[in-house]
C-alpha cells in the first residue's frame, strides 16, 4: 500500500492552507462598517452631543486609533484625558472651543510639544467629518476632564462664524474667561485683553503715519490716562465723560457678557490695566 506522492502533495497543500485559515479564525473578528453620514438634529442636549461625539471619535472619526485616553508613558500622540480643561490654556487667546476647533480643522497650526505633526485635517477626506459632527466631537473632548460649553449652534471661524463668530463662541460658552480666570499667573495682559474680547472693539495697534486711528482705539490710552483712570473706565463705564448714557450702557453690557465683571479677578483686570498703560508708539 503506497500512497502516490501527488495525493500527498494535495493533502499537504490543503492542510497548510487550512492551517493558515484556522490562524485567521483565531484572531479577533471585527468587521469595520463604512461610515455613514449622520444626520444630527440641531436641538439635542449636551449629553446627547457627548454621546454622539464619543461614538464618532471611536468610529468614523478614528480619533482613538491614534490618541489614547488615560494612558501615560511613551506615547506617539497626545493623550486626551483632561483635554477639556487643558484646551482652554493651550494657546493664549483661544478658549477651549476655539483651540479644539483649530486642532481639528488645522491640526498643524499648533503641535503639542514633544510630538510630531501627523494629524489629518478632520473635515477633509479621508476622514471628512461634517461641521456638525465635529461640534459633537468637541463636546466629547470637552467632557474629558471638563464640561462642554459648545452647542450645536456654536459658530466658529471654520463654519462660517468668522471673527465675530469667534467672540460669539466665547460669549456663549463663558468658559474661556472662566478658565482664564484660574490662570492669572500664566496669562499676560496682552492675552487677557484678547481672551476677554476687548480686542473685538478696541484696537491697540498704533495707526500708520498719517492715518486716523480707528474708532475706540486704545493705542494711546497710556498717554491720555493714568492707571487709576483706566481702571475706573473699565470698572465703571457710566463715568466716562465722552460717552453718552446709552453708549455707556451698551459698553457695560458687552463687557458684562464677555465676563469682565463676573469672572475676571482683580489681578487680571490689573494686568489689563498695566498692559494698556504701557507706552506703545503713536503720538
Amino acid at each position: 500500500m503506497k500512497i502516490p506522492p501527488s495525493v500527498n502533495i494535495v493533502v499537504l497543500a490543503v492542510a497548510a492552507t487550512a492551517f493558515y485559515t484556522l490562524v485567521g479564525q483565531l484572531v479577533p473578528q471585527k468587521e469595520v462598517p463604512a461610515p455613514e453620514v449622520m444626520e444630527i438634529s440641531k436641538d439635542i442636549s449636551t449629553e446627547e452631543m457627548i454621546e454622539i461625539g464619543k461614538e464618532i471619535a471611536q468610529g468614523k472619526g478614528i480619533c482613538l486609533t491614534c490618541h489614547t485616553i488615560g494612558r501615560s508613558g511613551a506615547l506617539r500622540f497626545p493623550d486626551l484625558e483632561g483635554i477639556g480643561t487643558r484646551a482652554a490654556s493651550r494657546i493664549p487667546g483661544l478658549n477651549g472651543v476655539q483651540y479644539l476647533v483649530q486642532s481639528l480643522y488645522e491640526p498643524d497650526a499648533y503641535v503639542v510639544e514633544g510630538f510630531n505633526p501627523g494629524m489629518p485635517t478632520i473635515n477633509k477626506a479621508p476622514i471628512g467629518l461634517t461641521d456638525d459632527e465635529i461640534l459633537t466631537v468637541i463636546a466629547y473632548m470637552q467632557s474629558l476632564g471638563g464640561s462642554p460649553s459648545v452647542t450645536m449652534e456654536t459658530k466658529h471661524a471654520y463654519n462660517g462664524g468668522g471673527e465675530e463668530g469667534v467672540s460669539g463662541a466665547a460669549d456663549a460658552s463663558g468658559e474661556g474667561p472662566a478658565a482664564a480666570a484660574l490662570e492669572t499667573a500664566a496669562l499676560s495682559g496682552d492675552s487677557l485683553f484678547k481672551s476677554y474680547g476687548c480686542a473685538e472693539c478696541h484696537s491697540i495697534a498704533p495707526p500708520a503715519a498719517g492715518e486716523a486711528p480707528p474708532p475706540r482705539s486704545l493705542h494711546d490710552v497710556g498717554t491720555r490716562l493714568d492707571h487709576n483712570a483706566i481702571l475706573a473706565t473699565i470698572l465703571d463705564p457710566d463715568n466716562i465723560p465722552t460717552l453718552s448714557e446709552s453708549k455707556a450702557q451698551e459698553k457695560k453690557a458687552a463687557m458684562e457678557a464677555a465676563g469682565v465683571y463676573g469672572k475676571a479677578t482683580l489681578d487680571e483686570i490689573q494686568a489689563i490695566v498695566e498692559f494698556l498703560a504701557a507706552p506703545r508708539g503713536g503720538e
Partner: protein
Amino acid sequence: MSKRKLLLLSVCVAAVIMVLVVAGTKVLVVFENAYRTPVETVQLDRTPAMQGEADALAAAAEEQRTRPLEELGVPLKDVEYRAFPVIGSRVAVWSIAQLHLLFAAFVLAVPIFALIIEFIGYVTKDKRYDELAYEFTKLLSVSFSLTAALGAALTFALIILYPRFTDYLMHVFSLTFLPYALLFFAEAGFLYTYYYGWGKFSPKVHLALGIGLNLVGTAIMLIANAWLTFMTTPRGVSEAGALISTWDAVNNYMWMPINIHRFIANVAFGGSIAAAYAAFKFLHADSEEERAHYDWMGYVGNFIAIVAFLPLPFAGYYLAAEIYAFSQTMGLTMMGGAFSWLFIIQAVLIGCLFIGANLYLWLGMGRIEGAQRYRGYIKYLLVVIALCFAVWATPRSPITTPAEMREMGGSFHPILGKLGVMSAKNTAVNLLILTTFLSFIIYRRSGLTPVVSWAKTGKAAQLLVFIAVAGYVTYLGILGYFVDTTVRIGLSVPQVLSVLFALFSVTVIDIFLFRGARTIGETRWGTMPAISQYILIFIAVTFTWLMALMGYVRSGLRQHWHVYGVIRDTSPDAFTPTLGFATKVVSVNVLVFFGLIGFVFWLASLSGKKDWEDPEGSVS
C-alpha cells in the same frame, strides 16, 4: 513492514475513536438543547398563503415581461455598480485580481532567474545550468497565457462591476494604456522567441533576448503598479479628483516602494514555485539521475527564493514608511487599527517560512558527507528561531477572557506587553534573518575545508561580525524601551544597516575563504529524504498564501475608498470584512492557484513524455 502497518492501523483506529468521541460529545451537549420539530404536522395541499404566493409569483413574472427600460431609474451611463451573483462584486474582483497577480508574479520572476542561470551556464560552460534555465522557461508559456486571460477577465470584471470607478481610473491613466498594450505585445514577442528560440541562436543573442524580456516585463509591472498604488496613495489629482499631472499620479508615494517590494517578492515567489515544481518532479522521478537533477533544481530554486526573501522585510519597512509619510491615519489603520491582527497572522506565516527554509538547509546537510560536524549547532539555531518567532507573533493586546483581564489589570500583560511592541519585533526579525543566514553559511561549508593560509583568521572574523551585529541589534532593541518615540522609530535604521553589513561582509569573506577549498565530502544529489521535498512544497504554499494575504492588506487598507480620500466606495461591499473572512477568500484563491499551477506543471511535463502509440497498431 508489518510493524509499520500495525502502527498505521493503530493510529487510524485511534483517530477514528477520537473523532467519534469528539463528535459524540458535541452531539450530546448540543442535542440536549436542540430544537426538535413537532412529531406530526398536517400537510395541506393548498392553503390561502400558498395560493397568495403563487399569485404573487405570477404577477411578478408578468411585470418582468412588460418592464420598460426607463425603470432602471438612472440613465445607463450613470450606473455606479453592478452586483456579481452569490459572492458579490468585491470577492469576484478580489479573486480574479489575486489569481492574475500570482500568475503575473510568476511570469515576471521566472525570466529573471532563468536569465541569471543561463548566464551562469554561459560563463561556466556547464551544460547543466543551461538545461535548468530551459526547464524553468518551459513553465512560462502556459503561465503567460493564463496571466493574460486572467488580466482580461479582471478588466471585464472591473468594467462591468465597477463602471464608474473604472471610468475614473481610465480618465486619470489614459496616457498609460497605449504603452501598456504595446509593451504587452513586446512581452509576448520576447517570451515566445526566448522560449522557442532556445539553442537556436548564438548564446549572446539569446541572452540579449532574455534581457529584453526582463526589461519589458518590468516595465509592464511598473505601469500596472502605478494604477493600483494610485488607488491607495493618490497624487497628481485635485481634492475633488480632477487630473493635474499624470506623472505625479504614476509617481505616487507607494509606487517606488511597491515596485521594489514586488520585484524582490516576485523573485522569491517564483523561486519557491520553481522549487515546488522540482519537488513535484523529484517525488515522481523514476531514476537516480532524474532525482539528482531535480534535487539540485529544487535546491537552486529554494536558494533563489530565500536569498530574495531575506531583504524583503527591509523593502517592507520602506513601503510602510512611505505609507506613513502619505498619511499617518492610513499607517495607523494598518499597524494599530483594523489591520493590526493581520500582522500577527503574517508573523505566523513568516515564522513558518523561516523554519521551513532552515529545515530544508539542515536536511540538505544530510546529503553532504562530512556535514555531521555541524549537526550539533542545529538545536541552538532552532532555539533562536523559535524565540524570535514567538516574540514576533506576540500580540500587543492579546485576546483575553474577562477573568484574565482582571488578573492583568487591563488588556496588557506586564511582561508580554513589552514583547508586543515594535522594538522587540524589529529585533526579532533582524535576528531571524541573521540566524537563517548563519544556517546557510554553515550549509555552504559543510562539505568543504578552506585551504587559504588565513583560514582561521577569516573564520574568526566572520564569527566576530555575527556576534557583534547580533549584540548590537539586541542592544538597540533594548534601548528602544528607554528612549522617546521619535528616537525609537529611528533605531530600526541602524538595526537594518548592521544586519545588511553582516550579510554582505560575511558573504565576501566566505567567497574568498572557500576559494579553491578542499572538498572533504561529496554532495550526493538525489539522496535527500522525501520529506525535504514536501517542505519545498510547504514553503511554496506558504509563500503564495503570504503574498495573497499581503495583497489583501495592500488593497484593503483603502477601506471604504476606491481611491483613498478621492473616490468613495458607496457599494454594499464598502465595509472592511473580518480577517477570518479575508483569510478564507485568500485560502480559496491560493488553492485555485495551485490547481492551475498543477495544470501548468503537468503540461510542462508532457514534453518529456514518450509519443502516443496506437496500442493496436503496435500489435499488428
